[in-house]
């Protein structure tokens, strides 16, 4: 086999800190449930038969699959299952099962209702499946805490975890594809693409304030910075010399997106979770590890 392939496979199998996937296990369900909360509060209108639903269009491209509206009780049951499984996963209770059930409810609502499906809805099943097929829940979880209190054994700090590698690649792939889509779109032709997006109903008071005071050239500069970051993200995140800078830029970019485009804040939080989990430097993970150790009971010294 070729050397790069060998190196790639070795990288996949290299042990990574378990805390990385625990960050996703704890924060991603919260971001997803935050996004879903407005819908869940009206589950009967959303996926139930109380509200308006697009009729069966028999193969129309805008309707990937027709799922009839649920009876009211079933809509509330799906919503309750989503909340309970998401919270259980976040708390580390039956982590694998709860992540799988959570992912299943996310797939269902994404296909059931095109009108309420956004990037968070479509992306989150893959994230939760990655959590399900990982050792998530081994640290900083309720069940692991109780088990450990009984046995006194300390959890392993590092393990081979394909899910962490998957999420690291997913972030880089998403940015890169997003950058290419922007290049193919207007981002190299129109200097005020960013400016054009701050005037609709997503506008927050911060977006309005910035639009009122920033000169036109700053919007073009920000646009260029975002495009450069996204387009070359695999490079920035792949090279050790630029990784931490790229992480800081990505976190700042998503913070600004969340502050300026109200409803997009949940996607921003989800992306920040994936970025932090995948690319926090080992030193920062070390600090988290110290914190985690304080929360993990240890009666006797066990295997590490």
């Amino acid at each position: 086999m070729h050397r790069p392939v060998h190196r790639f496979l070795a990288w996949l199998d290299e042990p990574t800190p378990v805390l990385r996937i625990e960050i996703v296990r704890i924060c991603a369900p919260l971001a997803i449930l935050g996004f879903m909360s407005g819908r869940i509060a009206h589950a009967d209108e959303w996926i139930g038969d109380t509200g308006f639903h697009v009729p069966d269009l028999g193969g129309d491209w805008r309707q990937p699959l027709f799922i009839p509206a649920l009876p009211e009780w079933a809509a509330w049951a799906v919503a309750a299952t989503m909340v309970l499984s998401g919270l259980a996963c976040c708390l580390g209770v039956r982590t694998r099962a709860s992540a799988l059930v959570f992912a299943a409810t996310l797939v269902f609502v994404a296909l059931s209702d095109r009108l309420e499906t956004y990037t968070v809805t479509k992306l989150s099943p893959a994230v939760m499946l990655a959590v399900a097929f990982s050792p998530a829940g081994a640290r900083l979880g309720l069940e692991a805490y109780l088990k450990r209190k009984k046995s006194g054994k300390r959890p392993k700090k590092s393990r081979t975890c394909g899910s962490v590698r998957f999420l690291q690649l997913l972030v880089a792939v998403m940015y890169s594809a997003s950058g290419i889509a922007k290049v193919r779109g207007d981002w190299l032709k129109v200097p005020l693409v960013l400016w054009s997006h701050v005037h609709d109903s997503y506008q927050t008071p911060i977006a309005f304030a910035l639009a009122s005071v920033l000169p036109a050239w700053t919007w073009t500069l920000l646009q260029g910075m975002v495009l450069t970051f996204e387009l070359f993200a695999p490079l920035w995140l792949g090279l050790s010399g630029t990784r931490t800078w790229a992480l800081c830029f990505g976190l700042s970019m998503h913070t600004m997106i969340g502050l300026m485009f109200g409803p997009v804040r949940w996607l921003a939080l989800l992306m920040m979770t994936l970025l932090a989990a995948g690319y926090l430097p080992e030193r920062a993970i070390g600090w988290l590890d110290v914190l985690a150790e304080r929360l993990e009971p240890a009666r006797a010294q066990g295997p590490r």
Partner: protein
Amino acid sequence: MGVPRSPIGTPIRTRPATWSARGRVALRVLAGAYLLGVWLDGSGSGIPASILPRAANYFVQVSALFPWAATASIDYRAEGFICSEGAWMELDTRPYFPIDTEDKENRFNRVMHFFRENRPTMTALDSYLVNQHNSAMREDGIPSDRAIGGVRLLSLRIPIPAPGDRLQRMSRQPLSSYPEEQRKAFYHTPRSRLAERCGRHVEGTD
């Protein structure tokens, strides 16, 4: 207990271990295919759409975010045809689409965004709005004692200001406050249907 080994010292793969290895390979192939799908879709390739089932392809469409400049700030509105007066009046759709009422993630906006040129969906929306208003369950800007026979569905295309212009916070204004050239009607209930619902001949509704 260690890993079982053959007489020459190589590890012997038990059945669960073999399954686990196969499962790992299958997961890696799936994960790789998903990542490739996300990248190709965002990059503008038609390959995922041509080879994946539509439901699967839907889940790889996650990366092409905001590629185009907005040419206007778009909002969608509805008017109801009041049978007793033979006149159109703005119908506030928010009570009938209670999720995210104040922004474009509202379901009425979404149905107009995706399906405004899809006749069966617009007809279904027409029936839904008329039934909702005439059942007099919620306040929608048209007095509940005035039945409506149909709806007119339109978009508002509000120009984007130039940098340096005096800006106003985005807020919802009555339909009547927008000039005619900013409105574009996509659908109105056919006259025959209006007559049927209102129980009388209707003129000049288009």
